[in-house]
């Protein structure tokens, strides 16, 4: 009968011992990847909630809303980013990057969004990474967000800033909108220089297109409110120019 000879000899071949090692390696790697994916989903979802919280800001409630948002962000850092750090276990940051990159991008988006609304400045990668240092156990190499994920998160930030700008104009805060406009212009311009150098920049290129669209939306909004204000100033006459310029 066919194949009689071949199927028996294999039971305890010397190869099997070798392959047992490979098996362990692959199993552990896959388990780790799964844990990282799960931790990442929590980071993503809760970072999104922080972003929504910031959008609840209006002229009158800014401090309260932002204080809550910062609290929520701190909770994301302490509860969920720390879990991600733990699951990553101090290694394989690059190997498993695809499993957590979207979460980290969303986290960067939330953190930089909070900072801009609070202080009008860009939260630096170094600052974020400094805040992550305390999360990992002493013995482990701490997770440090890489430049690529930071920049990808920043690209998404500009979409949120666009929404914010439109809202601020409705709320009468034209100067705030103009500040956002300048900020997004700066980021966009800086990124144009960096994009071609980024690893796998296909994704980033798409985000740059979206970013330009967002920027144009902000600029168009500033344009309409500007000509509108200008017409108003003319209508009211020179005596009444100043309060309008202040707005």
């Amino acid at each position: 009968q066919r194949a009689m000879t071949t199927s028996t000899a294999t039971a305890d071949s010397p190869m099997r011992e070798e392959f047992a090692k490979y098996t362990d390696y692959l199993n552990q790697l896959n388990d780790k990847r799964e844990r990282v994916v799960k931790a990442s989903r929590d980071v993503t979802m809760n970072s999104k909630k922080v972003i929504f919280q910031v959008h609840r800001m209006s002229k009158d409630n800014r401090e309260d809303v932002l204080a809550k948002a910062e609290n929520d962000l701190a909770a994301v850092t302490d509860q969920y980013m720390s879990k991600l750090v733990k699951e990553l276990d101090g290694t394989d940051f690059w190997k498993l990057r695809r499993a957590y990159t979207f979460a980290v991008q969303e986290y960067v988006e939330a953190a930089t969004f909070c900072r801009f609304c609070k202080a009008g400045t860009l939260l630096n990668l170094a600052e974020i990474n400094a805040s992550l240092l305390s999360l990992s156990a002493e013995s482990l190499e701490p997770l440090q967000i890489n430049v690529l994920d930071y920049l990808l998160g920043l690209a998404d930030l500009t979409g949120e800033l666009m929404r914010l700008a439109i809202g601020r104009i409705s709320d009468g805060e034209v100067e705030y909108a103009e500040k956002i406009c300048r900020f997004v212009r700066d980021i966009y311009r800086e990124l144009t220089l960096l994009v071609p150098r980024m690893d796998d920049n296909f994704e980033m290129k798409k985000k740059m297109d979206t970013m330009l669209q967002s920027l144009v939306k902000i600029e168009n909004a500033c344009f309409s409110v500007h000509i509108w204000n200008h017409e108003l100033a003319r209508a009211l006459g020179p005596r009444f120019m100043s309060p309008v310029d202040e707005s």
Partner: protein
Amino acid sequence: SSSSSVEKQFEGFRVHLEESGNVRERIRAVVMEMEGAVRLMHSSLLLVHHTRPNPDVLEKAKLQIEVLKDLFGGLAQILRECPGQYYRYHGDWRSETQAAVSLITFLHWLETGNLLVHAEAEKKLGLDNSEFGLDIEDYLTGICFMSNELPRYVVNQVTAGDYDCPKKVLKFLTDLHSAFRMLNLRNDFLRKKFDGMKYDLRKVEEVYYDVKIRGLGSGDSIQGHATQA
């Protein structure tokens, strides 16, 4: 001002990304040489399909191993400057590594009849230090590529008159296949390659029995045939 602090940070990124861009360019140059070396080694080894294997053929192929070792050394050198970023650039030399593994393991099997295990492969390619190793999935993929050569080898050897070859290959491939089955593979590239190994195994088997029923192998007569003779 806010704008200048933004600028400063981005200036830092620019430097960082330029550096990593340079790393990629340097890797690219090495990988292009690796591709050439792999191609040469492949060409040399292919001669085993057209003649009975002989030391000359194997020796010539082995020369390229040293070349590859040096090139991997070059890669390791580059990567040493970016600690912990092996997997950032890994995709850039992946397919050449897999091809290299398939060739050195095929060569090793031709010489010894045994599988060159991961640690030995690392050593042969000079990858044995802890910083720059041979990724296990790349090693396993290389093994699958090697397996793809075996049916062709066996067909050509039989045509060239070596009737004992199928048995030897069949034993080896059966063991290898059975060892592979221990792995839990994700639904990915490696699993697809492993599926191909099943077809290799079947083809080798058919050749083995083709030879056997015709009573061609040494000491391999099957009963029916034997009786008939």
